């Protein structure tokens, strides 16, 4: 899939409760190994969803397939974003149209300045939204203001993208990117992993500030501690490439106390879907 030009995507106003992301019976594989085996999930504007599950259950794969990682092949099912076929878009067009993936392991890119990277990204998104691009000076003011959300030192702007950043700094940089890109659907893949208590609070506060009635957030996490700070409307539990059970915030607390074996022992088929 290639993209040569930016095309505005669904710039109609969003109302709280509008379906932003609809995943239907999604099957996806990597190198002939089927990882996703029929995922269905619907996310509406104003909602925060949490996705939990054992290692290898397919959580990160789902996030990468939504973002358009080329290593994964969708073999069946669909993903609709604001009513349009998301799978038909290149990764960059998905991002420009408002889908954001916060990486579990943000990539280090030596030699590429973080400031330049952020400016080019931000302008690509702004162009898609019909906004004027920001010049270097205006953007620098904008990014410095935005950095306050994650209490990030402006010195990180001068460094190469994620190079030499600690785990916590990388995650803050991800949330900074999220703040600059103003996504409609933000998927945060284990953003809480590797964070100390203070960093977790800062990142969680940042995510909460950015969650609006017209946007949606999907948190992929292993731990209740993130969900203590960001209370989800729905909690989903994945196993073997499918969502086995869906519930409210209490489901996460039950998982924390009883572990995933408890899910295996119960029948999740009667779980109400959001």
């Amino acid at each position, binding site marked *: 899939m*290639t*993209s*040569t*030009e*930016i095309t505005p995507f669904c710039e109609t106003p969003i109302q709280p409760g509008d379906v932003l992301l609809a995943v239907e019976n999604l099957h996806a594989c990597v190198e002939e190994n089927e990882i996703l085996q029929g995922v269905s999930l619907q996310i509406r504007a104003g909602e925060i969803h949490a996705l939990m599950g054992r290692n290898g259950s397919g959580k990160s794969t789902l996030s990468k397939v939504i*973002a*358009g*990682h*080329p*290593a994964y092949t969708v073999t069946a099912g669909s993903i609709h974003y604001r009513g349009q076929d998301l799978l038909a878009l*290149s*990764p*960059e067009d*998905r*991002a*420009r149209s408002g889908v*954001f*993936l916060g*990486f579990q392991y*943000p*990539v280090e*890119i*030596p*030699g*590429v300045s973080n400031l*330049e*990277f952020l400016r*080019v*990204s931000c*302008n*690509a*998104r702004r162009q*898609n939204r019909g906004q004027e*691009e920001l010049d270097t000076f205006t953007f620098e003011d904008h990014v410095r203001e935005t950095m306050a959300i994650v209490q990030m030192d402006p010195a990180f702007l001068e460094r*190469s993208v994620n190079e030499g950043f600690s785990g916590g700094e990388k995650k803050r940089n991800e949330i900074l*990117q999220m703040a600059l*890109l103003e996504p409609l659907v933000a998927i945060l893949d284990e953003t809480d992993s590797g964070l100390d208590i203070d960093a977790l609070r800062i990142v969680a506060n940042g995510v909460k500030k950015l969650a609006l009635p017209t946007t949606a957030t999907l948190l992929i996490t292993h731990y209740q501690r993130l969900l203590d700070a960001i209370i989800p409307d729905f909690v989903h539990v994945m196993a073997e490439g499918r969502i086995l059970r869906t519930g409210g915030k209490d489901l996460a607390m039950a998982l924390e106390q009883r572990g995933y074996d408890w899910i295996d022992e119960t029948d999740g088929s009667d779980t109400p879907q959001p």
Partner: protein
Amino acid sequence: MSNATQSRPWLEALLQVLAQRAGHSATQWPSARDWCWPTRRSETWRFTDLRCLTQLDPVRLHTRTASPRWPDASILLPSDPVSGKQLPARHVFLQLDGRGHWLSPQGELPTWPRGLVPLPTEEIIPGQVAQTVIPSGTLPLGAQLNGVTPSPALGLQVSGPDPIHLELAIQVEQAQAWLAPHLLLVLQPGAHLCLSWHVVATAQAAVMPMVEARLGLAAQLEEATTAWGYPGATFLGSSFMDQSPRSIYRRTTVTWGWGLSRDEPFVRQSQGQAETCLHGLAVARGQSLLDTHSTVTFDGPGGHLRQRHQALADDRGHSVFNGRVVVPQVAQQTDASQLSRNLLLSTSARIDTKPQLEIVADNVQCNHGATISCLQDDELFYLQSRGIGRDQASRLLQRGFCEEILQQLPKTALAWPSLQRLLEIPVPDQP
């Protein structure tokens, strides 16, 4: 047919023309028979095709140059960090004219600052440093051609600890130009010189600069070269550095374009205990062949070398790197590292890289490494996932790859518009 067989008549014709221009008869001038013309059978020339050079017509060769478009002086000259006022110049800006003389951008004879003194003509003997740096006495091809090309040499003595900046620019815009500038530098003990070369050839031509420098005790030479040439142009650069103890030689070379570029730096730490840093970046696109053959010899103990060569090859571009490091028995406690990093961007591009460490001394720390890779999918996806188109993401990553060497260039070198344009800095906002 070998290079040598093909090139013999061309070399004969060239030498006759050069002899006439020097006012000598052909019998007084070196004959093609005396030359050891490189062939592809030689290990050091097996990847290097000289046809780009031999396509020049010896009869039509000339030495005409054009005026370089110097960057704004306010960019070139340093400012006081507090007042913002430009500091008193210990800068000299010179460009090569059509008669082989170095003149100011205004076309005047240079005014030399304190600490920079021209050497008398009789003291400028081509090859005087080269012969000590290369004991075998066989000069590389570029130096040999430089030696038989009649052209006035520039010789300078440098003294004093305050850095002096010497900016040299060569601009070639007419086809069949044949330029062989020769520079001899004698750095007195403790002297500090920052030398920048900016070479641009926009037509089928040959540029063969030769630099010889003798660095006295604790002297410091920082040399930066940016060289861009038209796809049919040839660059044959050679430099010979003789370092005394505690001297520092830092060299950064950025080369792109050219049909053929062969850069051959030779460094000798005559008694060890000196510091050498060699940084090179070659960007080979189109059908460009960019070849770097470096030799660093430690003739004493406690020498230090940091070498990093990076190459990017795209389209049918070809990069060659051969990094020879010689550490004889006398060079105990040498600390040398060499890294060759390469980015291969197309299936038709080619990278040949060869570290060549010749270590006899047993108490040394020497390491080398070479990597060849393409753009990383994870890096591309990361950028794409932020809305950056694949092509632009690729350019960003390429620029990032180059950045590590570009950072070594002085501000004055980065100020040249050609460098900014050709390396696409800044990356356009449009994907």
